[in-house]
């Protein structure tokens, strides 16, 4: 739940007075022109960005009063998929997937499991890769994979966290258009069958309408609309992008946390 949140980076106002409540298991697409604050909004939800004013509550816990250990624990239950996947290129796919659960392991335990993963862990990683359709790549080096395949590995890594929620920041921005629909549909299907909360920022409004039951429109850091997809009128959407020429610059890529 995001309550009357404002986020400023210096003089730049990334979000202004944003209030949104998302229930467990919901699938929500955040749409809007670039620079509207979509990325900042997602980063609020895992404590990567802290509100300048207002409050964020995730899983019944206020994010502004967490200790580092609590924040780590919370983050280990929220999968985050970046636009640029952010895998380790020189590691095998299996190791990249295993790395998703580091937040649950002690340091020594993680070294042992990363070097010599148990059969159960390997099977679990294999099952997730099977779900995203690239199980044959389990022992491939990650840098040998295509962009779309790497994005699927990133999804498998996030799922390997055994998360309660999945956050995805423009996950198909670097995937070619035909594959984009399949990838977003994969996210939506997985989250439906596993009852995971899904919050995804999307540039492609048609994909959002087709695959998400609820849309949040952001413009210039403010909520333009927040309603079930069938209740979002074409006029509203047009309005959302009408001022695109006047859209402000993107929020800083590496925000302080």
């Amino acid at each position, binding site marked *: 739940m995001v309550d009357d949140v404002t986020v400023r980076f210096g003089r730049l106002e990334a979000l202004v007075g944003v209030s949104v409540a998302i229930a467990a298991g919901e699938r929500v697409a955040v749409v809007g022109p670039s620079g509207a604050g979509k990325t900042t909004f997602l980063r609020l939800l895992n404590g990567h960005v802290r509100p300048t004013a207002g409050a964020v509550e995730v899983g019944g816990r206020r994010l502004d009063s967490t200790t580092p250990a609590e924040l780590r624990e919370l983050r280990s239950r929220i999968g985050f998929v*970046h636009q640029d996947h952010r895998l380790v290129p020189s590691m095998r796919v299996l190791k990249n997937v295993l790395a998703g659960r580091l937040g649950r392991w002690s340091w020594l335990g993680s070294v042992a499991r990363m070097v010599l993963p148990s059969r159960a862990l390997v099977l679990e990683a294999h099952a997730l890769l099977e779900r995203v359709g690239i199980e044959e790549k389990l022992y491939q080096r990650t840098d040998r994979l295509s962009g779309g395949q790497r994005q699927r590995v990133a999804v498998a890594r996030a799922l390997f966290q055994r998360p309660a929620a999945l956050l995805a920041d423009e996950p198909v921005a670097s995937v070619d258009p035909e594959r984009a629909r399949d990838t977003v549909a994969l996210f939506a299907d997985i989250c439906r069958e596993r009852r995971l909360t899904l919050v995804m920022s999307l540039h492609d409004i048609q994909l959002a309408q087709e695959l998400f039951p609820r849309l949040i429109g952001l413009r210039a850091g403010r909520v333009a609309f927040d309603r079930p997809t069938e209740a979002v009128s074409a006029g509203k959407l047009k309005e959302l992008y009408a001022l695109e020429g006047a859209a402000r610059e993107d929020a800083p890529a590496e925000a302080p946390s």
Partner: protein
Amino acid sequence: MRPGAARLSARLPGARAGVLLLILLGGLWAAAALRLDPRELVPDGGRMGLAREFFGRALTPALTYEAAVPDGTVPLLAKALVAVRTTIVFAAAAASLSLLFGIPLGFLASEGFWRARPIAPRTPGGRSRALGMRALHLGARIYIAVLRSVHELLWAVLLLAALGFTPVAAVVAIAIPFAGTVAKVFSEILDEAPRAAGGALRLAGADRLQIFCFGLLPVALPDLAAYAFYRFECAVRSSAVLGFFGFPTLGYYLSASFENLHYGEVWTYLYTLFLLVLALDWWSGRLRRAMIS
């Protein structure tokens, strides 16, 4: 870029050209202070004959000894190979020792190892811990500077005096400054490696040490390995030079032949060293390609 740096370069548009000019002027001043004279590059009188004789043998290195040797002496080329082996053995010992100490030091000196994102640094315990980390980081960097400030030849002189003529002295002499260089370059490689993968692990709840081990180290590993191999190559050169102190590496035979005015043999050893470095370069290139693709 820090805002201050941006402002400075905006205010002084010719700053970069000015710095280049200063460096150039410094070089001219140094040349004048040393009274460098290009004419001295041409040897005079008797030296000219010597130089001609020496460089004249460049195309005809010796294949057998240039003077009579006692029966049973190993042939020249076999001796060169034995010297190569000894050179490599010294270099391997020194390079391993320098990696053994240099790698952990490099970790301690890198930003990435310490890069914590303390969410609540204002707790009293958190504060003194952060201070302790900073002290260790700074300590490691100072220690590295100390290790690097004395050249291996100088260490060899000191250690030979202290320990006597023993291989340990030669190996440690090379390993001390090399450990410092390994540590410095490793810390730089780690700090320049892309951080995106580590950032993703942080968002998945990994702690600092896990991010370092699984998000940063594997990203930097190909470069680290290539540099470790380059250090071995440097150790080969240094171990060859330590032959001038009497250790039976290439430099020993080279200087002996030189003193006896057997220039053909000198060239034989020089070409051997050249081929050795070339072979190492080829090998390390293969290793690197195997690691990246």
